[in-house]
């Protein structure tokens, strides 16, 4: 199927690794131009070089803190200057890591009773403000083209809090992010712009692996005990691949998905229990 996004210009935050990288690769496969944004220059450069080999001249990268609206504006300006007006914005920013010694690379671990209130402000900046800033900065280009695709890599905890894990921050902030995207979808629908939110389940990335290692150490279990116990609760009995996230995001960015907007769509192997 020709998704009709050849030469469309996309920005993918968190684009150097894992899910973001898979999305960038998939959009490049459909003929789009892709600007990668992430914090770490070296990882960005490595990914951009690897992707450029498959899509020469169609990928670039800017080191940026996408939780800072000024940095987001800088990325959008660089994208316009390099490739032209932005048509596709994929926000893929993880929650903030409070104590990397205590939680591996996992985001926002902690219980309600022990979580200081200011951490909710930081998590809101990471998950909500980052997505708002990227969407807002790209909207003028999208409105001018009367075509746009905004996609947020959210989390299944937006709809079903993960109360079995000490994840109070994403449990609280993710639903608000989903609501913001739903409102935005209504506001921009008449301009030919769609806005969707992915309810990400358990996807096998490097960061996820390090989280399992941390959780195993934290709970005094082996890595296999932690993961097999978790997999047994997933109907498909496995974690998802980054490419399986990218498949949905790329479809949502397609011409064919013009009528799909305001959706929060799980990619979780059937884990969530809601209809």
């Amino acid at each position, binding site marked *: *199927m*020709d*998704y009709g996004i050849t030469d469309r210009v996309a920005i993918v935050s968190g684009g150097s690794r894992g899910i973001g990288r898979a999305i960038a690769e998939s959009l490049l*496969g*459909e003929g789009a131009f892709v600007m990668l944004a992430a914090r770490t220059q070296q990882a960005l450069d490595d990914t951009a070089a690897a992707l450029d080999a498959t899509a020469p001249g169609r990928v670039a990268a800017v080191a940026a803190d996408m939780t800072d609206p000024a940095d987001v504006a800088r990325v959008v300006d660089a994208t316009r200057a390099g490739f032209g007006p932005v048509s596709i914005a994929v926000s893929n920013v993880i929650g903030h890591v409070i104590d990397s010694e205590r939680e591996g690379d996992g985001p926002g671990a902690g219980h309600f009773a022990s979580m200081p209130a200011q951490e909710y402000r930081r998590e809101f900046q990471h998950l909500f403000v980052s997505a708002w800033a990227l969407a807002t900065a790209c909207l003028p280009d999208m409105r001018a083209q009367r075509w746009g695709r905004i996609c947020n890599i959210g989390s299944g905890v937006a*709809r079903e809090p993960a109360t079995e894990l000490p994840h109070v921050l994403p449990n609280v902030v993710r639903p608000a992010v*989903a*609501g913001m995207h*739903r409102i935005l*979808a*209504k506001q921009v*629908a008449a301009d030919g712009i*769609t*806005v969707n939110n992915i309810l990400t*389940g358990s996807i096998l990335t490097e960061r996820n692996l390090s989280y399992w290692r941390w959780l195993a150490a934290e709970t005094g279990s082996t890595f296999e005990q932690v993961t097999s116990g978790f997999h047994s609760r*997933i*109907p*498909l*009995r496995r974690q*998802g*691949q980054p*490419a*399986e*996230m*990218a*498949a*949905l995001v*790329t*479809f949502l960015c*397609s011409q*064919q*998905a*013009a*009528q*799909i*907007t*305001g*959706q*929060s*769509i*799980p*990619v*979780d*192997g*059937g884990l*969530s*229990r*809601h*209809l």
Partner: protein
Amino acid sequence: MDLGLRDRTALVVGPDSVVGAACARALAAEGARVVKVLADDVDIVVAHADSRGRLSLSDVRSADDLHRSWDVVVDTVELFRSALPAMSGRGWGRFVWVGSAASRSLDAADDELDAITSLAMRATQKVIAVEAGPTGVTANAVLRGGEASPDDVAAAVVFLCSVGAGYITGVSIGVDGGVGASVF
């Protein structure tokens, strides 16, 4: 995008309805073999209530009226149940239900029974997703509403049938231009 459907066998219920025809056409365009009768080689089953009558709850006069709407659930469950063993045996399968976006917002006054039966089918898909997930079979719903055309619906159906959608199961995707009122 290669959706990985070449030579898969797909059964589309009601291929003469506009939605069924669009789904059959879109699946065929991806190289799937579209059939009209269930056989053991069917990998994909797409069902919908497209050709049924429209009915509001206040227009219901008898239990028979209710059963006429509910028949689509009975028929679809029977079809899906018949198709499941062969899919599970091969470790790959796709069930897609095309229902009503009003099953989320319940604001379609002229077709409330369709919304109600779609709720039941979404629950059916959830149950199939949990029971058949371990054998690599997925079950999802596409909810049509707003100004969405049959081709808009078919694109979402075909995506859910694709290889890349293999980690998506038990899910409902609204294809309604964002007109619904619900967050989820």
